[in-house]
Structures are given as structure tokens and as C-alpha cells.
């Protein structure tokens, strides 16, 4: 017999009103109210407001009818790109805000680790804040008394436990916050990206704690960009896309599909012979590609690689042409931008014909992960055209360091020179 569902989400919808509430004044509201009373349309919505599939007037549907059940003891990963609705779903689950439509049913105590350490008062000591934070999360005093020792031990900051938290580093706050929340022993634990903070040692501890929780028959919802962690922690994953469930199934399958859809297989793209090839009256792109500098297909952290752009051009007598790339990681952070003319200022005519422009990205530089490349073409100091997300590639982890299976933080993972000297040398 299957375990009973502990979370039921049915046709969950959430609408945000863009700009309506924020700038309201009393007189705006009065006129709106008056219009509604008389059955007239809202006088304040601009005429001819653009309507596309997600924006209707001034509304934005963050969730557009989500359905899923989670059974007791399941560990479910929730994945999706920024803006797919993950954080809205979390906010609804943790009752910070209310849905526009649909219903969520929950059985058992649910605790969310939405931004651990929320509610620390900087003037109070670590110990006092444990009590305050625990109480905010719904713990009773006796419960906290009982677990205080364990919480302090887990946080690893016993030395500073009686220091006001305003003197803590952000890392220490996170440790303490996670320690409190992890010891809450909820039946359902909602974890959001805690792994993005703290050092590897502490992350390991957190994941270990989460596995304990999962092992003891409790339920975990794990929201993360860290696919490795999702695959290793969760049996099941739900992929949200544009406010809807795109896929729901075994974690490995869903993660593979998700990664596939996000640009791994676009290491090269060709526009040759296409009528709609990106370009203007002078320059036309023929192809673009990312490939390891020394051949092969796999790029790992230690592989230098080329970003290559093939283009056809008319003669440009003054050589006024620039092509640049923007490289984004999977969190939509611009990892770096670079352009040809930054490095090569030689002026001289560019002959008509086909050319290949190659940018070498050294290694080790980028951290492991998925990246997307946008290509920009400039002439006469203006951007002429742009190919958004023209390419996608993955930087594989390569050899692992230590037992840590997760991902190190940061956009970059360069190997830097370190040196130890005696002080008064």
C-alpha cells in the first residue's frame, strides 16, 4: 500500500498585479473604486496595454494551474529556471502569501528553510536568537530547551553563542539558522537553496541532516539549481516551466530532460543557407560553435575552449566591426562579457568574404555548470544585431576533489597561486 499524500496541490494559481498596488495613492484607489461601483473598467489601466501570453493587462500569472501530490517519506526536488514559479510555489506552501486560485492541503507540521536566519535580531546573542528563531518557526520553548545543546553543537559556533549576532559573519548566521531549522523535526521540510551558502564542510553536514530527515520517514521538498544535489538526494523531481508543471517523475529522468532542454546540445549552430540568418546589410553570421581547444567534445574545468563565430561580410574599408559574447550561467548571472576589439585594436580593412573569429577561453576559469552564450555584433559604435542564447555548453566537473559531490560555489573556479612565507622574511 502506498503511503498517504501529505501535500496535495490542486490547480494552484497565483497572479501578481504588476505596478498596480505599489504606486497607489488614496485618490487613485477612490477613483478605481468609484468606477467599479458603476461597472466601468479600471480608469487607471493604460490604454492598449500589451497583451502576451503571460501578461494580461497589468497582471502576471506566476503559477498557472499546478497539480501534484507528495506522499509521506518522499524527497521531491523542484527544479526550473528563474521565474518558472519555484519561489512563488514555496511562498504559497509556507503561507507567506495566499493563492489566487486552487488549493493546497497539508498534513503535518511543515517548516521551510526559506532563507535561514530570517528573524535574527542583531542585538540579541546567538543563544537568545536560537529561542527567537525557533519560536518564529513554531517551536515551543520546552522543545528548544531540549534541543539547545544539539543545535549549538550542529552550528559549530559554540564559542560565539553568547555574542550578539550583529558581530557574526554571514556564514555564521547561516550555520546557526540552519541548525535551528534542521532541528525543528517537522513532518515536512521545505528547503530552498541552502546549499548555496556555507562552505563545503557545512554543506555536507546540511545534506547529511537532510538525508537523516528523509530516512526517518519524513517528507522533503527540495528546491535547487544544483542538479547534482537534486539527483543524489531526491527520488522524484518536478520541473516547473512558465508557471506550469512541465514534467514530473523520477529525478534522474527529469533532471536529464531539464538539462537537455537547456542548451547542452547547442554547442554548435549553423545558419548557412538560411534566409533568416542573423545579420544586417553588411555582416551575416554563418555559424557559431563552442569546442575544446585541443579537440574532443567534453569541456571540463581544466579544458581551454574556443567560442567560434563564422561570418560573411562585404568589404569594410575602415575595419569598423566588432563582435562580442556574453556568457551566462544557469542562474542567469552574466559570468563574463568579452569582445574582439577589446583585445585586438588593429585597424585595417576587412576584406569581403567569409571569416572565422575565434575567442579562446582559458582554463581553469569557469566553474562547472551550464552556460549560454549571446552573440553581439557592433558597427559604428552601435549594436547592429544580437543572437540571444545562440549557444549552450556545459563545463563538466572533471576530477572530483574529495568526497563532496555537490558543486563548489561561485561563477569562477580558477586555480590561483598561493604561497606561504615566514612573516619576517
Amino acid at each position, binding site marked *: 500500500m502506498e503511503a498517504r*499524500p501529505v501535500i496535495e496541490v490542486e490547480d494552484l494559481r497565483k497572479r501578481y498585479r504588476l505596478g498596480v498596488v505599489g504606486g497607489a495613492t488614496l485618490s487613485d*484607489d477612490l477613483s478605481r473604486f468609484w468606477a467599479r461601483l458603476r461597472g466601468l473598467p479600471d480608469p487607471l489601466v493604460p490604454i492598449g496595454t500589451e497583451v502576451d501570453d503571460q501578461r494580461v493587462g497589468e497582471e502576471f500569472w506566476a503559477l498557472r494551474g499546478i497539480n501534484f501530490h507528495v506522499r509521506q517519506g518522499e524527497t521531491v526536488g523542484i527544479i526550473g529556471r528563474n521565474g518558472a514559479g519555484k519561489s512563488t510555489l514555496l511562498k504559497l506552501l509556507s503561507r507567506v502569501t*495566499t493563492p489566487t486560485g486552487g488549493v493546497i*492541503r497539508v*498534513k503535518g507540521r511543515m517548516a521551510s528553510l526559506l532563507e535561514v536566519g530570517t*528573524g535574527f535580531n542583531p542585538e540579541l546573542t546567538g543563544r537568545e536568537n536560537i529561542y527567537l528563531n525557533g519560536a518564529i518557526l513554531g517551536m515551543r520553548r520546552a522543545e528548544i530547551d531540549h534541543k539547545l545543546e544539539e543545535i549549538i553543537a550542529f552550528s559549530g559556533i559554540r564559542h560565539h553563542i553568547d555574542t550578539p549576532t550583529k558581530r557574526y559573519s554571514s556564514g555564521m548566521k547561516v550555520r546557526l539558522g540552519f541548525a535551528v531549522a534542521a532541528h525543528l523535526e517537522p513532518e515536512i521540510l521545505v528547503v530552498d537553496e541552502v546549499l548555496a551558502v556555507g562552505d563545503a564542510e557545512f554543506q555536507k553536514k546540511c545534506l547529511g541532516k537532510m538525508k537523516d530527515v528523509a530516512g526517518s520517514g519524513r517528507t522533503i521538498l527540495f528546491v535547487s539549481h544544483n542538479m547534482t544535489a537534486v539527483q543524489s538526494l531526491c527520488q522524484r523531481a518536478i520541473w516547473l516551466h512558465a508557471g506550469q508543471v512541465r514534467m514530473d517523475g523520477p529525478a534522474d529522468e527529469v533532471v536529464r530532460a531539464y538539462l537537455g532542454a537547456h542548451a547542452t546540445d547547442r554547442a554548435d549552430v549553423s545558419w548557412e543557407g538560411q534566409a533568416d540568418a542573423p545579420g544586417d546589410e553588411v555582416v551575416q553570421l554563418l555559424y557559431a560553435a563552442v569546442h575544446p581547444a585541443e579537440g574532443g567534445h567534453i569541456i571540463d574545468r581544466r579544458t581551454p575552449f574556443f567560442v567560434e563565430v563564422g561570418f560573411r561580410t562585404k568589404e569594410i574599408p575602415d575595419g569598423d566591426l566588432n563582435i562580442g559574447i556574453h556568457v551566462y550561467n544557469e542562474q542567469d548571472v552574466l559570468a563574463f562579457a568579452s569582445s574582439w576589439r577589446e583585445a585586438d585594436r588593429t585597424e585595417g580593412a576587412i576584406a569581403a568574404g567569409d571569416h572565422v573569429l575565434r575567442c579562446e577561453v582559458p582554463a581553469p576559469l569557469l566553474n562547472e555548470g551550464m552556460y549560454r552564450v549571446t552573440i553581439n555584433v557592433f558597427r559604428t559604435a552601435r549594436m547592429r544585431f544580437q543572437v540571444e542564447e545562440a549557444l549552450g555548453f556545459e563545463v563538466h566537473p572533471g576530477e572530483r576533489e574529495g568526497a563532496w559531490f555537490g558543486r563548489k560555489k561561485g561563477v569562477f573556479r580558477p586555480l590561483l597561486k598561493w604561497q606561504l612565507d615566514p612573516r619576517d622574511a
Partner: protein
Amino acid sequence: MHAARPSDLEEWDVIIRPDGPWWRLDLKELWHYRDLLVLLVKRDITAQYKQTLLGPLWHVVQPLTTTFTFALIFGKAAGLAPPGIPSVLFYMSGIVAWNFFAGVVTRTSKTFTGNTQLMSKVYFPRLVVPMSMTASTLVGYGIQLATLIVFMLIYVLRGMPWQPGPELAALPLLVLIMALLGLGTGILVSAMTTKYRDLGFLVGFGVQLLMYASPVIFPLSRLQNYPVLLRVFELNPMTPVIEATRVVFFGGALPWAGLAYATGAALVISLLGLVFFHRVERSFADIV
């Protein structure tokens, strides 16, 4: 098979839906969070005085200075204080009561705007916050009340006739009315400030103005020849409470009709406050 369908109502602990009731006061939930309330009160009190020299003495300094200023200007110079009671005691009793009400209003009116960070991240019954603020203001009131009693004893030792009457028993009722009035007004304002920030500025000013429509500065009996003004004063639910506070300490007849009006006003305002507060608490995270 499905002997007990899980969708049976009692099978779920929490059901989250868009259309909540327009009025809600979940006492059971509040009771569960009582430790949070206590901790918030402690946090309020300790955080307030860390890194101050005088600490809780500030509770005494402020009303004392005001009292002496009022006694000097309104009592001595303008001659507004009534005969029979030392004007220091007259003003102190009014100021202490008014401070409590004003303190509760101004502090609880910042419930949402002052806790944005916390409230947009974690769920807990929001009402715990203004309730804890009321309680921590009550602590300050206690200290001020003690100061008043000390001053009374000084006057009694110096020969002021005084005998505690049965009216003293009405004091808890007065505190309750003031707390409800302050809390109700405060949460009403706090609910509205999430949308109209201007109200935040108005509160301090408004509360100050309201004091001049209360018998803090002179007794209501002074207005006998000004019926219109008297009406205005009587509309202020704090008026009978302050008059009654003085009766409690200095004797006289308790204004029962006025107190009944104040109680009614406190209940109506609190109810109204709850309705608006509840509405805002559901949508608050989307507005900020």
C-alpha cells in the same frame, strides 16, 4: 481501499485557499505561538536598552520631564489644574495613562512596515507582533505607574490626605480598555500603512493632537461652559479612561457611562482593526 479518503476535512492540518473568511481570529493558533509572544516581548525590551546608558530609566525620565513641564506651564502659569490635587500628581496620572495608549498606537502601527523582512519570509500568526508590542509597552506603563505611586507616597508622607477606595479595583479594567483601544487603532493603521505610507507620518502627529482633546491638561469639569467642546472631548474614548484613572487614585465617582462608551468603542475599533489586519496579512508579501 480508500476507507478513509485523505481529502476528508479532518485528514488535513492546513488547507490553503484563496478565499479566506473576511474575519478571523484563530485563538488556538495564537495560543500555540505564546512562547513567541513572550520572546518578542523580551526581545523588544532588551534590544531597546542595549547600548543605552540609562536603560529602563528612560521610562521614568520622559514622563517626569513632561509632568514638570505641564505642571509649570499649564498648572502654574495658565492655572488649568484643578484644586484639591497636587498639580504634579494630576498631570502625572494623565500623562502616564496617555503615554500607554499613545505608545501602543504608535508602536503597533508599525507592525507591517517594521517587520517586512521577517514577514515576507516566514509564516506565523501576524497578530503576535502587535500583541507583543502592546505587552512590552505595558511593561513601560507598569514602571511609570510605579513612579506615580512613589510620588503619591511622597505627597502622602508630607500630609496629603489619601485613603485608597474600592475604585482602585477598576484599574485593571482601565488598562484593558486602553490596551484594546491602542491595539485596535494600531493594527487598523498598520493595515492601512502598507498601502498608504503617508499614514505612518500622520500617526505620531494625530496621536499628539488627540491628546489635546483629552483631559490630560485640564479636567473635563473645566469645559462645563463650552458644550460643543465638551461634546468633542466626550467623543474621545480616552477621555473617560483618563478621568477614571484620576478617580482611581484621588477619589470621586467613576464615570460608568463614559467607561461603557469607551469599552464599546474599543471593541468596535478592535473588530474593525482585525478585519483590515487580516485582509492585509494575506496579501502583504505581494505588496512590498
